[in-house]
C-alpha cells in the first residue's frame, strides 16, 4: 500500500524542508521527499499548486464522548478534524464522567483507535471531577495514554492545589495546560467587558480575569519548574507576560485559537450565541496583540478549542447559552486569512504553529515528514475559493460564527497513518 503525492510544495518545518517535490508513503510511513518519486501500484495524488505538510495537531478539542454524544462523538469529531487537515487531536477531559481516571482515559484511547479517523489523545483532568480540590490520578492517566493535564473550563482556583498539580505533573513529565480565568472575576459574565457589553446590557468578563490567572500560574510554574501551557490566550497582558516568561527561559508556551485572532467583540452579531465562548472575543487591541504574539514567537501553537454544542442549547437567550464554538474545519482557512495572506507570518511559520508548535508541548511523536515518520499528512490550498457551510459539517453540532463565510485557501486532503481519511 503506497501513495505518491505529486508535485506539491512540501513544507516540513521539523526538517527545514520547503520545496516543490513528491512525497512517497509506503506502508503507513514516510518513505521519502524528492522530485520524481514513484512506486509500483502506488495511488497517485496530484498536489500541483497545493501545500503538502505534516498532518496538523490540534492540542485543544472537546469531543464530548463519553456523556454528551448528542453534541459530538469521538468519531464525528475526528471526521471534522480530518476535514480540517488535522491528523492528531487532543481532547479535553470535561466529559461525563470527567476524564480524571485511567478508566476513562483508556476508554477514550480505545474508542479512538476503533472509531476515529485521526489519532485521538486524551488530556487528563488536574483534579478529581475537575472540582479543583483533590488531585486526579495523574500518573495512572499518563500510563493509560494521557498526554497532558488540564481542568479546562473549570480552572483550578486554589493556588495550593495548582502548585501540587504542577509538582506532580513535572515528576511525570506531563505539561499542565490551564484555561486561565479567575472564576470570581468572570462570574456571571457572558462576553468581553467593554463598550459592547455595556451597550448590550450583558455582563462582562474583564481581561483581568485571564491576566490574574496567567500571572499566578507563571509564578507557580517558576516555583515548581513545571512545563506550563496557556490555553486559548486572548489578552494583551497575558501575551506580554508569557513572552517575558519565555524570555527568562521558563518552559512556558501558549496557544491561540483562530477565532481569537480573527474576530473581536466589535465583530459580534448582537445576542448571537455563535459568538459566545470563553475566553470571550476580546477588544480589537487584544486581537492584534494575539497576532503580534504569534508573529514574535511568544505564542507557539494554534489550537481550535473546538467546542460542539447542539442547536437546542445554543438557541436560547444569550445569557443562558453555553460557551464555545466548533472550529476544526475552519482553522486553516482562518489562519491563512488572518495571518498568512496579510503577510503577518510566512506559510512555513503557519505550518509550524500547527505541527512542531503543539508537538513540543504534548510530545505525540508526530508532526514531521522525515523518512520513517508515521505518514500523517495535511494537503491544503492557499488560494482555493470556498464557502463554509456549517450544515455540511462532519461535527454533530452547528455552532460556528463562520457559517457562509467565503475563504481563500483551505484543506484539500488528509492522510492518517498512510491512508486518505478525507478528500475535498
Amino acid at each position: 500500500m503506497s501513495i505518491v503525492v505529486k508535485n506539491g510544495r512540501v513544507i516540513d518545518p521539523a526538517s527545514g524542508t520547503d520545496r516543490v517535490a513528491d512525497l512517497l508513503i509506503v506502508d503507513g510511513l514516510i518513505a521519502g521527499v524528492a522530485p520524481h518519486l514513484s512506486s509500483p501500484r502506488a495511488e497517485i495524488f496530484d498536489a500541483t499548486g497545493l501545500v503538502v505538510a505534516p498532518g496538523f495537531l490540534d492540542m485543544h478539542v472537546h469531543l464530548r464522548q463519553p456523556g454528551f454524544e448528542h453534541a459530538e462523538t469521538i468519531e464525528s469529531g475526528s471526521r471534522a478534524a480530518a476535514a480540517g487537515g488535522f491528523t492528531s487531536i487532543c481532547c479535553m477531559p470535561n466529559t461525563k464522567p470527567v476524564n480524571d481516571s485511567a478508566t476513562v482515559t483508556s476508554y477514550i484511547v480505545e474508542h479512538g483507535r476503533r472509531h476515529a479517523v485521526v489519532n485521538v489523545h486524551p488530556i487528563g483532568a488536574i483534579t478529581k471531577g475537575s472540582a479543583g480540590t483533590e488531585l486526579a490520578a495523574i500518573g495512572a492517566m499518563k500510563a493509560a495514554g494521557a498526554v497532558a493535564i488540564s481542568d479546562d473550563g473549570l480552572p483550578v482556583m486554589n493556588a495550593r492545589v495548582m502548585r501540587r498539580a504542577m509538582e506532580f505533573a513535572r515528576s511525570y513529565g506531563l505539561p499542565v495546560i490551564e484555561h486561565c480565568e479567575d472564576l470570581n472575576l468572570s462570574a456571571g459574565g457572558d462576553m468581553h467587558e467593554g463598550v459592547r457589553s455595556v451597550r448590550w446590557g450583558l455582563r462582562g468578563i474583564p481581561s483581568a480575569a485571564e491576566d490574574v490567572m496567567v500571572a499566578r500560574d507563571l509564578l507557580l510554574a517558576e516555583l515548581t519548574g513545571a512545563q506550563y501551557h496557556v490555553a486559548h490566550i486572548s489578552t494583551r497582558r497575558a501575551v506580554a507576560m508569557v513572552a517575558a516568561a519565555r524570555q527568562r527561559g521558563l518552559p512556558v508556551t501558549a496557544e491561540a485559537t483562530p477565532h481569537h485572532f480573527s474576530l473581536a467583540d466589535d465583530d459580534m452579531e448582537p445576542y448571537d450565541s455563535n459568538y459566545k465562548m470563553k475566553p470571550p472575543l476580546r477588544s480589537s487591541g487584544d486581537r492584534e496583540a494575539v497576532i503580534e504574539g504569534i508573529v514574535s514567537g511568544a505564542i507557539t501553537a494554534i489550537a481550535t478549542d473546538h467546542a460542539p454544542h447542539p442547536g437546542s442549547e445554543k438557541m436560547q437567550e444569550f445569557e443562558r447559552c453555553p460557551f464555545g464554538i466548533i472550529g476544526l474545519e475552519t482553522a486553516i482557512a482562518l489562519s491563512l486569512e488572518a495571518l498568512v495572506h496579510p503577510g503577518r507570518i510566512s506559510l512555513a511559520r503557519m505550518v509550524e504553529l500547527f505541527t512542531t508548535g503543539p508537538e513540543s508541548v504534548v510530545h505525540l511523536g508526530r508532526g514531521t515528514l522525515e523518512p520513517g515518520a508515521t505518514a500523517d499528512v495535511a494537503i491544503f490550498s492557499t488560494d482555493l475559493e470556498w464557502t463554509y457551510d456549517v450544515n455540511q459539517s462532519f461535527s454533530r453540532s452547528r455552532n460556528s460564527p463562520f457559517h457562509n463565510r467565503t475563504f481563500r485557501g483551505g484543506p484539500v486532503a488528509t492522510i492518517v497513518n498512510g491512508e486518505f481519511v478525507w478528500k475535498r
Partner: protein
Amino acid sequence: MPAGLLGIEELDRAAIDALLARAKDFQPLQSQSLKKLDTLRGKMIVNLFFEASTRTRTSFEIAAKRLGADAISITAAGSSVSKGESLVDTLNTLAAMRPDAIVMRHAASGAPHFLARHLPTPIINAGDGTHEHPTQALLDARTILDRLGRLEGLRVAIIGDIAHSRVARSNVYLLSRFGAEIVLCGPASLLPPELAQLAPGVRLTGDIRDAIRDANVIMMLRVQLERQHEASFPASEYFTFYGLRLEHLDLARPDAIVMHPGPINRGRELSSEVADFQRSVILNQVENGVAVRMAVLEKVIG
C-alpha cells in the same frame, strides 16, 4: 426581521419625533369619557411578560384596548415556560396563533432581538434585561416635552444604578439624538466608564451635586437589588450619597422636573418629600405611558 420595536438605539430622530407627535394626538383621549378608538379593530396583541410588571403590562393592555385591538396578557408563572419549554418554542407556539404583535418583557438582555431573528411576528420590547426599555424612554421624552417644551439643549441628570438600567440606556440613546447633555451619576461600581461611549453628549460623575447642578431634568432610577449579582455598593450608604433630597433641588434649574420610572422606593433613592414635590412628574409619566404605547402599537401594527 419583521418591523417591531426592539430599542431606541436603532431609531433615528425622525422616527422618534413621529412617535412623540402621535402620542400627543392620543393624550386628550385619556381624559375623555369615551376613550376607545377602532384603529386596530380585529387585531390581536399578545403581552408576554416573563418578568413581573404592573405598570408596563397594564399600560400596554390599556393602550391596545383603547385602539380597539384585542389583547391577551400572559405571565411566565402559570404558562408553559414554567413547565420547562424553551423561549423559542413558547414564542413559536404563540406566533402560530397569528397575533399581529407580541409585546414582550424578559429578564435576559437581547431576548427579543434573538426571537425577532426567528419569528415572523413583530416584537415590541417592553424591557429586556439590562439593555433597553424603549417605550419608557418615549414616555419620558413625551413628559419632558409636555413640561419643558423641548429636548434640544437640555441638561439631564440620570442618577442611580446605571449599569443595570435599561431605562437609562434607552433614555441616553433618545436624548442624545436631540442633542441633550446627559450626566450619568452613581457609585463607581454601578457606573462603568464605557457608559461615556454609549452616545454623544454623555458625561459620568460620582457626585450627585455635580450631576444635579443646572439640570433641567433629574431622572432617578430605582435601585434594582434583584439585578445585582453581588454587593456592588453597601446598601446602607446608598441614600446618604445617592438619594435625592429636597435640598439638592436648589442646585438644579428653577423649573427642573424630577422623574422616576417607578416603582419608587421612598427613602431609598429619593426622599418622600421629593416624590411628592410639585415638580415631580412621576404620575404624568405613567399617564403618558398609555398614549406613547398607543402610538407604538399603531405604528407597528397599523
